[in-house]
């Protein structure tokens, strides 16, 4: 299995102000640039799809991860190729970001190609699930991505089972499951995390606390200030990360992953963030009414792209001029153009979109297949 180590040949840079060494200390300047590009990519995915939908080229609901991109980018950067992930509705970019550090176009990386993901977005037959289930409900056994249902938190027990089997086979792979803060109220969350804790399974539960579960504020779903406190009920670590800061997410998730991989067990990493728009794009207009405007402004005031640029400028990895070249931060789909993004990003995604638009719809003859395993499989 081709495996790219985090530490590159170049001398790792200490960027943290903390006295203790941090996981980020092994990151090189190239890693920083790569992380920034990935933030751009996740953001571009979001605004591009929104535009495609406005142009009428796309059906279905979009669950935007706008303003929450650092969580996916930072956490996935902390994983090995062979680790597993289990994304949910707001994590669409996770499918192509997984193992993307092994090369955006690497054929053997254990993440989905942009063509596959776009085919899923457009409901075309080249989607990994042949467009049988919608939006983020794709996955790949080969690429180690667990398929979710709509039922929130439902993949946590499944993820626990996956790594249980892996451990039985002598593996030391970790699984990262993603869930919104609202989903932590589900029974399956409890049963899954509890089982993982009893057996010290390498399950890292990333909680994307974007303050809202559809139209319900976090405090009506979770009784504690920090959702990470749920960890205390299981005697496992509950870390809180700044979800706007890709490096902090990387640090905390790296820590959790290391803890898991070394056999110490599961943990919860809460990443504090804020949902930029509606729950889905069908909710954009209503969200303006049920959420106080000042809360929204504060929530959006620390764009993850901007935050990363600040760090890089401070660390001398980026000039202000370079930073200003692609001013995608703080902008919604209506305010942004392709020029606000690095060419590499636009090209990569455009290739996916073009591919998807050419991929056919699945044929009706497939509709009744695979209820059960077919003989030739």
């Amino acid at each position, binding site marked *: 299995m081709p495996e790219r180590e985090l530490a590159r040949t170049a001398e790792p840079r200490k960027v943290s102000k903390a006295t203790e060494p941090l996981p980020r200390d092994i990151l090189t300047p190239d890693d920083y640039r790569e992380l920034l590009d990935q933030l751009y990519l996740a953001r571009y995915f979001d605004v591009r799809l929104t535009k495609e939908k406005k142009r009428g080229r796309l*059906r*279905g609901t979009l669950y935007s991860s706008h303003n929450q991109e650092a969580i996916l980018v930072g956490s996935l950067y902390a994983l090995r190729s062979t680790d597993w992930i289990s994304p949910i509705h707001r994590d669409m970019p996770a499918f192509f970001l997984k193992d993307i550090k092994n090369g955006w176009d690497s054929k053997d990386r254990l993440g989905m190609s942009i063509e596959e993901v776009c085919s899923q977005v457009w*409901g*075309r*037959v080249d989607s990994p699930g*042949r*467009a*049988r*289930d*919608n939006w983020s*409900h794709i996955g790949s056994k080969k690429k180690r991505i667990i398929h979710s*249902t*709509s*039922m*929130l*938190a439902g993949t946590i027990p499944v993820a626990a089972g996956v790594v249980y089997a892996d451990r039985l086979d002598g593996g030391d792979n970790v699984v990262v499951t993603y869930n919104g803060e*609202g*989903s932590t*109220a*589900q*029974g*399956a969350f409890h049963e899954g995390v509890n089982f993982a804790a009893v057996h010290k399974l390498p399950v890292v539960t990333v909680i994307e606390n974007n303050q809202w*579960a*559809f*139209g*319900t*504020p976090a405090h*009506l*779903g*979770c009784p504690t200030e920090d959702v990470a406190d749920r960890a205390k009920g299981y005697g496992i670590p509950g870390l809180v990360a700044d979800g706007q800061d890709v490096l902090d997410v990387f640090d905390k998730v790296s820590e959790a992953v290391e803890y898991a991989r070394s056999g110490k067990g599961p943990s919860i990493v809460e990443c504090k963030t804020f949902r930029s728009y509606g729950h889905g794009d069908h909710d954009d207009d*209503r969200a303006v009414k*049920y959420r106080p405007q000042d809360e929204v402004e504060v929530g959006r005031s620390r764009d993850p792209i901007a935050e990363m640029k600040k760090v890089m400028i401070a660390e001398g990895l980026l000039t202000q001029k370079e930073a200003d070249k692609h001013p995608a931060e703080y902008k919604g789909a209506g305010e942004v153009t392709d020029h606000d993004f690095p060419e590499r990003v636009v090209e990569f995604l455009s290739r996916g979109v073009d591919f998807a638009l050419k991929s056919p*719809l*699945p*044929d*009706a003859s*497939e*509709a*009744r297949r695979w*209820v059960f395993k077919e003989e030739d499989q």
Partner: protein
Amino acid sequence: MSTAVERKTKNYLTGLKEAMYEEMESNPDLICMGEDIGLLGGAFGVTDGMQAKYGAERVIDMPISESAIVGAACGMALNGKTVMAEMQFIDFISCGFDQIVNMVATYCYRTAGEVPIPMVIRGPAGGYGGGALYHSQMNEAWFCNSPGLKVVCPSTPSDAKGLLKAALRDPNPVVFYEIKELYRKRSIEEELLDGDDALIPLGKARVGREGTDLTLVSYGNPYHLSLSAAKKLEEFGFSAEVIDLRTLVPLDEETITESLSRTNRLLVVNEAPMTCGFAGEVLARLSQAAFEHLDAPPARVTRTDTPVPWATPLESDVLPSVDDIVEAALKLCRY
């Protein structure tokens, strides 16, 4: 046909909303629970504005916890309240399943009548909208096979209003299937009655179209498909009677038997998976009760025994269409 404005016709969703408001107003012990039903007013707006009017204590924004929603609703119902528990999509009812079939459904029975549970579990259901596996289900058969629950499925705005009001006044737990594809359907809009006049009793089917050659029995969206099929069948010279069940449990067998005594042919249409679905139940009952009336094998058109897939060509294939109904009906008529 006159326009909506002239006739003040209202859609299915409005029927539900009016039912909720009228009952909230007349029954101070009515509590509403569900995800995002308060501040937001519900994913589809059935409880829109209700929290502002009746307060967050009576219109509760619940955590994403279907078991707690159903269980807590049961506790409130046991302690003097009437509860409307919303499932954001009826598909998620699976997450509160145990509480429904084992706690709620049986409470009256196991307490020898001491504790009936006045409670309505309602939510948007059904396919045809590209909702895929988890936003398209018609899983009513699970609950029809779980004694102690009434099961209701309106297919018109006035039934939506009248049946929901009746369900909210019923002392028993009711699982209430709303057809989201009908929520805003213009062609079925109707004028709606108010208050008690709007009530539609549970357990009574409705003959939606009279006919003489065969009986189409249906509910929900397939009821409208059946009406369309009936029209097409006219072109073939066959006259179809169309019955809208409205309530599945308890079933109004009489209305069907009466119809079959005249038409002698039975076709049941629904959009749930075939095996152990409610269409089969109707077939089973009537093939027995109306054996002497049947001049052709009783038939059903249902969803295939598959999940509901996403992509349109796939979804269309597995769900019943007007053509499927016409084809099955012709086979029956020409038998």
